[in-house]
């Protein structure tokens, strides 16, 4: 038998906030249009982070335990909770800092425990960015 819960707000049992609420990995939510459904857990962003590559330092993040400086413009984000595999989708952008210097974000050498972001510039080199952001969607382990 299927069941349906109609609510306006989800908080934890203590009523102090939503951070302790657990959602099963097959839960679906009714979509904005009111007809289709979308998987809640698959739709959650699994990692995000904003970093200063010059320092380098994590300015703020979710599910990121550490940052490793691999080289100019290239850093590895280590996940707190690992992904299920390396087949996730991560994307990001970086501060341009100079009009003449194009900024492209590429990924490489990703695995289930960490991702690598790289900031390319238009002349083929790489550079550190004062602000760089990454978002990761996919399956947690």
């Amino acid at each position, binding site marked *: 038998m*299927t*069941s*349906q*819960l*109609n*609510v*306006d*707000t*989800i*908080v934890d*049992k203590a009523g*102090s*906030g*939503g*951070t302790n*609420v*657990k959602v*099963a990995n*097959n*839960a*679906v*939510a*009714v*979509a*904005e*249009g*009111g*007809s*289709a*459904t*979308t*998987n*809640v857990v*698959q*739709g*959650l*962003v699994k990692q995000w982070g904003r970093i200063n590559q010059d320092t380098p330092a994590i300015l703020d993040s979710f599910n990121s335990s550490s940052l490793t400086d691999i080289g100019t413009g290239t850093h590895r984000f280590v996940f707190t909770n690992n992904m299920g*595999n390396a*087949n*996730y*989708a*991560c*994307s*990001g*952008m970086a501060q341009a800092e100079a009009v003449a210097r194009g900024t*492209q*974000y*590429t*990924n*490489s050498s990703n695995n289930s425990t960490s991702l690598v972001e*790289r900031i*390319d*510039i*238009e*002349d*083929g080199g790489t550079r550190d960015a004062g602000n760089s952001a990454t*978002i990761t*969607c*996919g*399956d947690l382990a």
Partner: protein
Amino acid sequence: MASILKVDTITGVSTAGSIAVTGEGNSTTTNLQQGLAKVWINFDGQSTIATRDSHNSSSISDDGTGQYTTSYTSNMASVSYAASGSHNRNGLSSTTFSNDSSWAATTSGIASITADSTNTGRDCDAVLISILGDLA
């Protein structure tokens, strides 16, 4: 004592597709549906293109060198959604990722291009796309 509520579908009372979740700061709320990624995909864009893993993606098509279309299982409500992507460099000196020149985003899919520094399309073996916005 922890409590577990088991349901198959979460639906808003006032609006079916709108659930508020209390934010991390314990004061404001954020919309559950709007905060979910509606599509994400990781695919191999070289030779025989193939999806490695995805959410709400029905298929991908090879539209030419470095050119792909990702189709959705459940359509978006409009074309005004946010798409972002990245790809591996694949040994190129510089690469770009963009939707195509005509902003070919429809409610049922999006076209994307991976290109080198001369704007020549190049196939890449890891193309990663995420879509946020409203489902139909």
